[in-house]
């Protein structure tokens, strides 16, 4: 198990290397010039050249790349070109809201989606199944921002139950946290619930076709137990796989949701840093998000062992 984790971690290195290279090349062959952005409208060409030199942007691209990697190796993520703050600090300040939103969304989605999926599998072919599943498809067919604005319109503007925007951390103001996190969580969850409910339904149905389900029925196991004890547990692996790969959707959705609900998280930082051509910040952010994604999937792989004794690492 430990050996497996070590091997998995080692195997992520080339992947991260690829990510780092892609991100780096992407940024450095792009037309944007951070110097111009920093100096503003009235800077002269000479002034810009001087800023560029100071930032090291005049050096060859590969020199910059290896310098960056070397710094990363030492745990130094660099300094934001724009705000002059350490990148690690800026990211750390933004992690809280994003993490809160991701955790509430994931929890809520799983709690709603799996029962929904199992229910649909149980009611397969019936109207309620069709309704749930069509709604599920609608769920991931509707962009997060459309859902978000729909919720704002109905629940904030019309009903007045929730604030239109904003974020408060759980620690500083639990009540305001609950009020501000609800709508973004709902908006993001529609996609996630849809994905998980669908996979829950189809994998439970698939498991229901397995021989051991017939065995269970033949030994007089009640239907309820057939579904929950035998089918659901065996369907767990594809379900958590989707929860893991859905994390990519979630990260993307967070970017949009943070923009809609004005939540100062990583997603908004991505957009801001991209618009400001804040190279060290963008590079670290994308790398970080990739690491999170890879990390989630590693955790998912390890979770498999919990649900399927056949999987051992």
């Amino acid at each position, binding site marked *: 198990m430990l*050996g497996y984790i*070590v*091997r998995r971690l080692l195997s992520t290195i080339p992947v991260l290397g690829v990510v780092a290279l892609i991100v780096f090349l992407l940024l450095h062959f792009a037309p944007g010039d951070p110097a111009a952005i920093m100096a503003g409208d009235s800077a002269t060409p000479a002034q810009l050249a001087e800023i560029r030199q100071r930032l090291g942007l005049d050096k060859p691209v590969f020199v910059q790349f290896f310098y960056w990697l070397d710094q990363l190796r030492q745990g130094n993520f660099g300094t934001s070109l724009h705000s002059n703050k350490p990148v690690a600090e800026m990211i750390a300040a933004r992690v809280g809201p994003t993490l809160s939103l991701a955790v509430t969304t994931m929890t809520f989605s799983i709690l709603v989606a799996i029962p929904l999926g199992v229910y649909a599998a149980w009611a*397969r*072919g019936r109207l309620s199944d069709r309704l749930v599943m069509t709604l599920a498809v609608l769920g991931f067919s509707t962009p997060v921002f459309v859902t978000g604005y729909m919720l704002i319109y109905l629940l904030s503007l019309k009903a007045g139950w929730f604030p239109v925007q904003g974020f408060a951390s759980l620690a500083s103001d639990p009540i305001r946290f609950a009020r501000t996190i609800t709508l973004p969580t709902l908006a993001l969850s529609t996609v996630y619930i849809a994905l998980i409910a669908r996979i829950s339904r189809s994998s439970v149905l698939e498991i229901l076709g*397995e*021989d*051991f389900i*017939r*065995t*269970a*029925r*033949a*030994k*007089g*196991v*009640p*239907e309820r*137990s057939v579904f929950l004890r*035998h089918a659901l*547990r*065996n369907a767990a692996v594809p379900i958590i796989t989707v929860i893991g790969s859905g994390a990519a959707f979630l990260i993307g959705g967070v970017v949009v949701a943070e923009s809609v609900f004005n939540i100062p998280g990583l997603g908004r930082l991505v957009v801001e840093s991209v618009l400001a051509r804040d190279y060290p910040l963008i590079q670290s952010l994308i790398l970080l998000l990739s690491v999170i994604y890879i990390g989630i999937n590693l955790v998912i792989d390890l979770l498999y062992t919990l*649900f*399927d*004794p*056949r999987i051992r690492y």
Partner: protein
Amino acid sequence: METAKTKEILRIDNLDVSLVESGKTLIRDISFTLHAGETLCLVGESGSGKSLTSLAVMGLLDPGALRVSAGRILVEGIDVLAASAEELRQMRATRMSMVFQEPMTALNPTETVGAQVEEVLRVHGEGNAVTRRERVLKMFEAVHLPAPERIHASYPYQLSGGQRQRIVISMALILNPRLLIADEPTTALDVTTQRQILALIEEMQQKFGTAVLFITHDFGVVSDIADRIVVMNRGDLVETGTRDEILARPRQDYTRMLVSSVPSLVPPGRMPVTGAQILEVANLNKVYTQGSFLSGRRRVDALKPTGLTLATGEILGIVGESGSGKTTLARCLTRLIEPTGGAIRLGDTDISAMSQRQLRPYRRRFQVVFQDPFRSLNARLRVRDIVAEGMLNFGTPREEAYARVGDLLERVGLSVEMMDRYPHQFSGGQRQRICIARALALRPEVLIADESVSALDVSVQKQVLELLREICDETGVGIIFITHDLRVAARICDRVLVMQRGEVVESGSVDEVLTRPAQAYTRELIGAAPGRNWDFEHFRPFA
């Protein structure tokens, strides 16, 4: 005991099962009875409806797709069809239970087998956690599972196929039901394991006085265990009778045909083959290495150094149970996997170390027929193009190739008009004929038939075997015939190699090996072969 023995446990009257959607009936007018302590074999080829009948008894027909459209099923006098879902659930495992074909998939892979057997007791409200565990352990002992405590805590994947089937049997019998339905319970097992499981079922039956409804396609098994036999064909009940009535004096043509198709373990008696040697294999072996450098590599000898020779016009059987290395040997010979070492001399040329590109011209000379007729044909191509592919690869003009396809189809017992059809329009046996035609198209010197008749029903199997023999005799192609079934080998082969754990344990002419086996393993195999005491072809027991 005598009264208990005659007690009627199962009664089926005029049963019809049909598709919910189309209303098409799949089985029609089935009636039979089963008494306590009796073993009734329900026999038929694929599609005969024997499994449907058993599922109908258990109330396990998929309600979305199938329904009982007529008839009555009584288990110990209780009408299964009239029972509520809850009553039916209560009856399962207590009055009637079932053992399925695939022990690999019949158990929940994510729970320990102990818990799964205990669940039977739990859902029927038997005892408490402690007594349940004790009962299960006792049952494990009764079905001769070694180290019951360890098995109890094992997951299915940690057990062998035979052990799993014992688990399923203990699950089925722990509440001592009066009716046990065994649906091809040994088909997926090796013969030696099959022998043991059949013995176990019989032992349990003796012990508990259970009535057994045994579903099988294998007349060998039938001849070994049946008290009475019900023969089914395409949803109809063909004939019912005692074992001897059916096997020795079948009244219906279908039954006659079916019984007489069953191969016997006694070879027909062949002349030794005197053709020139066309293939010589020496020290051929295959080693797999598993794991990575971090976890430590492990060597697995899938095939230990093996030699064989093949002459023109000869059929060489390679017989063994699963894991014996016979398929690895076949795949090495066909160079579908790379052998680790050794030589494959085709005429004068050693093809064992050639690159795939170098090998290509030699491919013409050795051809393969695979096991699964449904997957060995590209479903998107017409038969004409499938059979002509090899010829076109070797530069035969298209017109000429197509003309030869017609001849080949006729030769394998199909007709020229079938050229333009697609594979799905053919039955399994017909497809296997197409595969043979495809292989023959290149006029190979060696034909490797890897379990080529294993997936076929017994009547079709017989025809295909005859076809192969004819072709061999007619064209002089040497055939390496790989099979797990000694009876099949006995019927067709000139010589046999017996393999076990990656190596050849015995070889010789088929008569020698089957009638005077030198090795204990060979003897064990022969002893385990079902139906070896019955001469099906002549409707009589061997003397």
